[in-house]
């Protein structure tokens, strides 16, 4: 939706300019005249009025120092304060901005009121929809003077480009890009690595771990095959060896018998080891007297009624009650004492655990507490016995071997060596497999050979890569979207520039038919074709044409307030500018001096279909009295130091360019 802003009027008091009040609307209307001409002789305070208009509409005075503030004080006067009030129409909303200047303290204060909100609020508070227009940069585009016209054409300034950016909101693209950048920076701050080198490093680490894992897996597979082969080999070698050993008939028979017995004894040992291991898991078995201690613990806990059926929750509820269980009234002191005591009791859940501990003690240590350790001791002794039995068979077997080897059988010796070698190899193979297949440490080192640890490290490395990948993906996406926004900004500016140049040139052609200039480009400022500078008149014309094009294109309706719209223009240009004026917007307010009237006012009057308000403002001094003494009182407004006369006739008769 486009915006319609109108200037409804203003008032000044206590300032360098005469006190005055300007209403820009016909009586009983809130629609201002399309054109208002305010004629003020030089020295009347035209510049002050314009500066006040700008400051009040933009909030710029907030940045003024006290010296600047006091420059607006009425000269030769001890006025303590001044005020400038501007009334605006924003669609159907009436806005008032008040600028109050305290010359004693050298401070300013704004107040804002709106028909859509309640009361007057302190501060410069334009509604959100027009904030982008009511700022120092933008206000200067529609409260316009020759100085602005010069800056638009000044190659060292970017006012023209800024005007396009502002009016067409191209700065939004930059703002959006900035938000994406901020988003990325916020994310990057929390990431441990943001660069592609970081990603490469992590990927390399992941690949290294995966390569190692695959290598270890192949090694494990090979070792398992080797293990099976070795076991088979050992079986064969043992058989060979036993055969060779048993070549001596006597030894052979005894060997067979012992082997069978040894085999059985090994199985028994294995069984007993398992039983012992299982029994060792009962703490009350392995520590002598532990069962009795635990029973004693339980008995004491029972005796002390621990855990008590009264729990912490009981005390916490009691602390909230009005009365104690004994009937006394609770107060802050007793409540706190109860809460303190509650900390010494267990919660209901804790009571539950303790009761289960006591129950387990009863189950596992009940009966005769001595029996548990005794039972375990017997188990260990039993284990010892079967180990001894097995070892005896082993010893016997070794003796047989030695006896046989003493017979000097080199073949037997060779077979023994071979068997020992195979066993040694199997041992090494087993050790290596154990290392590869063992359970993982919780904090494995990077050079581990344990497969489970490697898998853990790989998962961690994959997470690391993912983290950086995500960060880099975000970075890439941010780059892409910023490029899009940047390109769109340039493209839009370029397209708009082309259109604005073309339309501005059309308007310039109309204005300066006799001495045309052509706008070549708007890189930062308005660049004229084939020339570095232009006359004052040309500058003004080009600027008007440019602004007219801008405002027409943008669909926003803003008042156009100009100081000396025709002052520097040649007489032949003035009518053209006058005819251009209605195109600048719905409302044109110009401050003029009498010498600007020629060739301008009449053309303007016609172009505006005679719907023009004429105001003449001057200081009330004795020497000016003659000018207004005979003016109809309906057309006259008098203040302490100023006189304002409405009407075309007086406007056209008034022939002072300077104050008397």
């Amino acid at each position, binding site marked *: 939706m486009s915006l319609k802003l109108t200037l409804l009027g203003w008032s000044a008091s206590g300032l360098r300019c005469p006190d005055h009040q300007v209403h820009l609307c016909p009586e009983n209307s809130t629609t201002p005249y399309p054109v208002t001409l305010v004629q003020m002789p030089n020295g009347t305070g035209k510049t002050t009025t314009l500066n006040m208009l700008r400051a009040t509409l933009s909030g710029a005075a907030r940045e003024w120092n006290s010296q600047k503030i006091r420059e607006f004080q009425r000269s030769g006067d001890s006025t303590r304060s001044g005020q400038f009030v501007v009334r605006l129409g924003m669609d159907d909303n009436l806005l008032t901005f008040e600028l109050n200047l305290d010359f004693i303290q050298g401070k300013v204060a704004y107040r804002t009121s709106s028909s859509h909100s309640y009361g007057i609020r302190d501060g410069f508070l334009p509604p959100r929809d027009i904030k*982008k227009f009511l700022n120092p940069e933008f206000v200067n585009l529609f409260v316009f003077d020759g100085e602005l016209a010069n800056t638009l054409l000044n190659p060292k300034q970017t006012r023209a480009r800024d005007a396009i950016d502002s009016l067409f909101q191209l700065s939004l*693209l930059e*703002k959006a890009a900035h*938000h994406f950048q901020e988003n990325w920076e916020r994310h990057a701050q929390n990431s441990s690595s943001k660069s592609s080198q970081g990603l490469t490093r992590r990927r390399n680490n992941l690949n290294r771990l995966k390569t190692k894992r695959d290598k270890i897996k192949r090694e494990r597979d090979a070792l398992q095959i080797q293990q099976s082969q070795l076991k088979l080999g050992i079986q064969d070698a043992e058989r060979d060896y036993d055969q060779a050993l048993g070549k001596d008939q006597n030894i052979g028979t005894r060997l067979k018998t012992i082997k069978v017995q040894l085999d059985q004894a090994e199985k028994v040992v294995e069984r007993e080891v398992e039983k012992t291991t299982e029994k060792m898991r009962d703490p009350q078995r392995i520590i002598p007297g532990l069962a009795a201690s635990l029973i004693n613990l339980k008995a004491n806990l029972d005796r002390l009624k621990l855990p008590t059926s009264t729990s912490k929750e009981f005390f916490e509820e009691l602390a909230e009650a009005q009365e104690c269980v004994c009937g006394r009234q609770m107060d802050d002191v007793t409540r706190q004492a109860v809460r303190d005591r509650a900390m010494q009791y267990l919660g209901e859940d804790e009571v539950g655990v303790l009761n289960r501990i006591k129950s387990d003690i009863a189950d596992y240590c009940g009966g005769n507490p001595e029996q548990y350790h005794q039972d375990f001791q017997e188990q260990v002794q039993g284990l010892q016995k079967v180990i001894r039995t097995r070892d005896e068979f082993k010893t016997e077997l070794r003796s047989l071997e030695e006896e046989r080897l003493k017979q000097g059988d080199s073949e037997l010796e060779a077979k023994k060596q071979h068997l020992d070698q195979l066993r040694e190899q199997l041992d090494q193979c087993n050790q290596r497999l154990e290392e590869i297949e063992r359970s993982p440490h919780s904090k494995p080192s990077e050079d581990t050979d344990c497969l489970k640890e490697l898998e853990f490290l790989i998962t961690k490395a994959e997470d690391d890569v993912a983290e950086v990948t995500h960060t880099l993906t975000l970075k890439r996406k941010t780059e892409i*979207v910023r490029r899009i926004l940047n390109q*769109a900004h340039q493209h839009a500016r370029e397209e708009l520039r082309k259109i604005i140049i073309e339309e501005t040139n059309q308007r310039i052609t109309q204005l300066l038919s006799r001495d045309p200039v052509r706008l070549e480009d708007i890189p930062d400022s308005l660049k004229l074709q084939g020339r570095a500078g232009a006359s004052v008149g040309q500058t003004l014309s080009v600027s008007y044409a440019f602004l007219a094009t801008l405002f027409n294109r943008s669909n926003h309706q803003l008042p156009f307030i100009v100081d000396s719209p025709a002052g520097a223009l040649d007489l032949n240009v003035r009518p053209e500018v006058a005819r251009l004026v209605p195109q600048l917007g719905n409302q044109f307010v110009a401050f003029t001096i009498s010498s600007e009237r020629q060739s301008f006012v009449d053309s303007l009057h016609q172009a505006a279909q005679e719907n023009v308000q004429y105001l003449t403002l001057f200081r009330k001094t004795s020497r000016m009295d003659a000018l207004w003494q005979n003016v109809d009182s309906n057309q006259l407004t008098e203040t302490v130091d100023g006189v304002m006369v409405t009407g075309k006739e007086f406007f056209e008769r008034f022939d002072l360019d300077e104050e008397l």
Partner: protein
Amino acid sequence: MAIDVKVDEAVFAAVVHHNQPDKVAKRIMKLLEELSDGRSKTDDIGSFIETILDAIETDNYEELE
């Protein structure tokens, strides 16, 4: 506050130029409208940013001059 049609066209053209799907342009325009209305706090526009980034494709993106 409406965004000028030239801005709209420029955004769409830039999106196409960068081999991105149309939805990126639509979402960017929504963000610009939001910013145009004066909403620029991180909390307000965070989801716009996220939605646009989600739509950006990196696979078919080529490095352009």
